[in-house]
């Protein structure tokens, strides 16, 4: 845990933070609003105090109630991984600015997140489906997407409680199975 990083982040990004900074193990976590993403990221990338030059991961999260995009950054200035959670996107129309201006390599990660969650990254010039076929309609990693029912045919005949029989492939009206807080 890098306490000084927390102090620096609080000093520099105080007005962008949407929640408390949490630290656990070797990770520091900040929460921001999607609209602030580009500014925060640019600060983290360009400020010589932070110098987060390497993007380790970009993940979409469907909490069941809202959408999040989670970034993991690495810097030589700290011993911690920095996790940035852009939270509070509506599930119906999640939108967030694209990071491709800063890290062109985020393009495919954003495509993947779009493909799996339907999060639209504004500014990504190639936001199409990457894994699923282009005519595919639903977003498989959303929490209201159930695995197609093959339990009736599965050996043993036992329905696993995770596989809901006769679940529609995707319906946004149906309540998600599990949700996680924030």
């Amino acid at each position, binding site marked *: 845990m890098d306490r000084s990083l927390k102090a620096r982040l609080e000093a520099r990004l105080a007005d962008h933070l949407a929640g408390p900074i949490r630290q656990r193990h070797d990770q520091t976590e900040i929460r921001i609003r999607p609209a602030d993403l580009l500014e925060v990221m640019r600060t983290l990338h360009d400020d010589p105090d932070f110098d987060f030059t390497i993007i380790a991961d970009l993940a979409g999260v469907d909490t069941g109630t809202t959408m999040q995009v989670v970034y993991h950054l690495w810097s030589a200035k700290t011993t911690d991984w920095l996790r940035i959670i852009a939270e509070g996107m509506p599930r119906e129309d999640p939108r967030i600015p694209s990071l491709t201006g800063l890290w062109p390599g985020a393009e495919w990660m954003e495509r993947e997140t779009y493909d799996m969650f339907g999060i639209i990254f504004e500014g990504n010039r190639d936001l199409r489906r990457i894994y699923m076929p282009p005519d595919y309609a639903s977003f498989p990693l959303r929490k209201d997407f159930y695995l197609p029912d093959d339990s009736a045919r599965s050996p043993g005949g*036992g*329905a696993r409680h995770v596989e809901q029989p006769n679940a529609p492939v995707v319906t946004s009206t149906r309540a998600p199975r599990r949700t996680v807080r924030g």
Partner: protein
Amino acid sequence: MSTVPGMGLLRGMGLTLTRFFQPKATIKWPEQQADVAPRFRGRLQLLYDENGSLKCETCFQCAQACPVECIDMGGMDTRGRFHVHWGPAETYGERREESALRRSGRPVADEAFTRFAALDPTADDEILAAHDDDPREMLAILEEVQGVYGYLPVAALKHIARTTGAWYATVYGTATSYRHFRFEPPSVATAAPAGQGQKVAEAGYLAALDSALRFDGKAAR
């Protein structure tokens, strides 16, 4: 790269030529078997104890733990109830499941199949509805189902598993761990009080009575 052009190529050719005369690495299967480490777990295997009887307790934990559902059970176990099989259903012609039989192209269900015959699930449904399909009340459900049929038919167990959402392995595991559950139709010998059964013991008579009273799965269909 070396200074003389072509020397690298010649060195490479030298290496391949030396390899030409070296002993070969190929294993000529099947004449020659590869040596497999003792720990290698490439194939599922049922273990037998020193007396030659199966060590498997049919606890279904392996089937439950298998992430790809490749372990599967059916048949007779050590108590004379179920054999244990492993492997996907497609590879087992003798699997007692409708779909597997259908897939294996067998037109008629065999004799052993009857115990797996489909049941009219209305009675089960009522019981399950009374318990709100809650898998945590499995014991009560199973007891009540046994009260209806007199034993626990496989089809009913599957129906319970499907409705409550519990693993079939879990349902079956629960059922097998309690002595008072039966998987066979109650015959005279078991239905009668224990002491009397011993007294009357006349084998031929018992067998005839047994076969006469034996539950016919086809009739229930």
